[in-house]
């Protein structure tokens, strides 16, 4: 068995490098992506290799450059539009939703928009309220978009390649705190055509007692919580959603029909969120009759993100919150 350790950042970098090489129509634009090597160094080395035509530094004008990216996609190119963080995508959200997501439908299939919007999403460390919002629920709400949320390096690599090759608008939600985290990657995953299908969740840990569904960085915490719980004889089945939209409800239902218990774990706010959608689907589907307890959500606290470390730490789910919620649900 051959494994190498690759950070999420490097996995994203390699995925973009390979896709830029594979298809001349692919290009990257965004703030600091070229000469700065990327605000978070995700595009390191790409400008040196591909030059000004393929790696484009933009002025700080999100609405303008997102619109330009969408127009380029309409006219035959395959842009990767980076938002330095998804907080700034709010300036451009009209272009993402009204110009990108809806166009194939409005044109009755005449005009497709093969674009990827990517960048860090959700809480970071100490960056406070305006720089810490999770947009999974906002983008996940809209038909015409695919919304992806990778966790591991393998997710990052396989899902970004799929997103770039997808002929539709894909919102690719990364996480800044995960960029530096190394993961073991198999030899198979190093292939240039290694793709992870959009819309399929992955069971990261099998278990019989309770289903724990999560996405992005929170998957790490769920696995850590599961390890602690295992010592007490509680076996969690941890599902990594990988994709927000289309949501792999079937994977979650199959698991719940086995474990009879469900919690969801996310970094974003509770109201009208990812967990809310999962719970609604479980209510409406075949798995409801298998629940032995109400399904619940573990989420970020319903407040703007504070700055002070003690406050920030208590604004997002911690491992102890997941353990607590599992035990409450199991009535243990």
């Amino acid at each position, binding site marked *: 068995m051959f494994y190498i350790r690759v950070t999420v950042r490097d996995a994203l970098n390699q995925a973009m490098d390979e896709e830029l090489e594979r298809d001349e129509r692919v290009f990257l634009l965004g703030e600091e992506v070229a000469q700065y090597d990327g605000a978070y160094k995700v595009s390191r080395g790409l400008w040196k290799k591909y030059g000004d035509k393929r790696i484009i530094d933009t002025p700080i004008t999100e609405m303008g450059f997102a*619109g330009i990216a969408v*127009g380029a996609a309409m006219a035959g190119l395959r842009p990767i539009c980076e938002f330095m963080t998804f907080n700034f995508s709010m300036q451009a959200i009209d272009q993402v939703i009204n110009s990108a997501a809806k166009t194939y439908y*409005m044109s*009755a299939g005449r005009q497709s928009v093969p674009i990827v919007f990517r960048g860090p999403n959700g809480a970071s460390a100490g960056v406070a309220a305006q720089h810490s919002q999770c947009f999974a629920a906002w983008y996940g709400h809209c038909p015409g978009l695919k919304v992806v949320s990778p966790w591991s390096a393998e997710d990052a690599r396989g899902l970004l390649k799929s997103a770039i090759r997808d002929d539709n608008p894909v919102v690719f939600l990364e996480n800044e705190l995960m960029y530096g985290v190394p993961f073991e990657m198999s030899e198979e995953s190093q292939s240039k055509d290694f793709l992870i299908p959009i819309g399929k969740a992955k069971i990261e840990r099998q278990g019989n007692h309770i289903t724990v569904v999560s996405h992005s960085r929170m998957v790490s915490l769920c696995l850590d919580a599961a390890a602690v719980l295992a010592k007490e004889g509680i076996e969690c089945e941890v599902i990594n959603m990988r994709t927000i939209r289309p949501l792999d409800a079937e994977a979650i239902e199959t698991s719940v029909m086995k474990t009879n218990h469900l919690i969801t774990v996310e970094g974003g706010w509770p109201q009208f969120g990812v967990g809310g959608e999962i719970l609604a689907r479980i209510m409406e589907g075949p798995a409801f009759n298998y629940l032995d307890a109400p399904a619940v959500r573990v989420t970020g606290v319903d407040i703007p993100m504070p700055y002070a470390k003690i406050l920030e730490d208590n604004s997002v789910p911690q491992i102890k919150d997941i353990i607590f919620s599992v035990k409450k649900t199991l009535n243990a």
Partner: protein
Amino acid sequence: SLSENAKCDVHKLEEGPPLQAVLTREEGLQYYRTMQTMRRMELKSDQLYKQKIIRGFCHLYDGQEACAVGIEAGINLTDHLITAYRAHGYTLTRGGTVREIMAELTGRRGGIAKGKGGSMHMYTKHFYGGNGIVGAQVPLGAGVALACKYLGKNELCVCLYGDGAANQGQIFETYNMASLWKLPCIFICENNKYGMGTSVERAAASTDYFKRGDFIPGLRVDGMDVLCVREATKFAAEHCRSGKGPILMELQTYRYHGHSMSDPGISYRTREEIQEVRSKSDPISMLKDRMLSNNMASVEELKEIDVEVRKEIEDAAQFATTDPEPPLDDLCNHIFYNDPPMEVRGTNPWTKLKSVS
């Protein structure tokens, strides 16, 4: 025939388009026919709207025909064009038929967007709509121009917006990037003096729209004269194709209808003003007079075109009112391109609908 064009005001340009232009008989007849078709199509749409056969938004273009026709005469069909919501005229010049345009307005399956888009969302080859969000089409157009430059096919993009949109921030963001990256983009402001019900003086600190691109060269053009528009467009296209980057044209024009069919158009302007433009500056009348006085066509010939156009519009209206609405199976189609069929939730959990690409 040779015609004298009004001199264009220029901004950051040594000279403007030529003061003289040659109009051949074929060209004249073609411009006349297209403008008349456009005019009649819009007036028929007005009728159908009042009969409630067209619903929702309907922004009519009558009065502005010389802009769409003149622009198309100055570029090629292989070039690209994008505009805002007053788009029926451009859908026609960019290759759409009156039938499929009108059937889209009436929401039928034979519509150019199969009834899924409506008035503001019509597309053809190298024509990117039809856009409902004021100003959003401008960055899109620059993106199309970026693709033109990237792919190296010597094509350009004409990117239109109105006097109302001209104050949008994203347009200035686009001017900046188009200029920095020397994108082959002709920005065109169709100044019809009113953004919805707000006159230009009440909306813009500077109404010199051709100068608002600042570092981008600009020209102000009589948008009621199809030849002026054509020559200015040719001039602008040459500028772009020679690699000089973007250029901006302001077309001074006028719409006879209100902003949309829900606006009578007389609360913020006078009937006298509208009548004055109709009698002194109507683009179709001006071309007709020019052709007749230069013996390029006879009165009978032009009348015959009118009759043919009327028939084409009648046939199209007939189609648009009798063609069936889209089938319900089409409801969820066209969400994603090149994807396997998928399920879409209906209005309740037991309703699962099918979606194909």
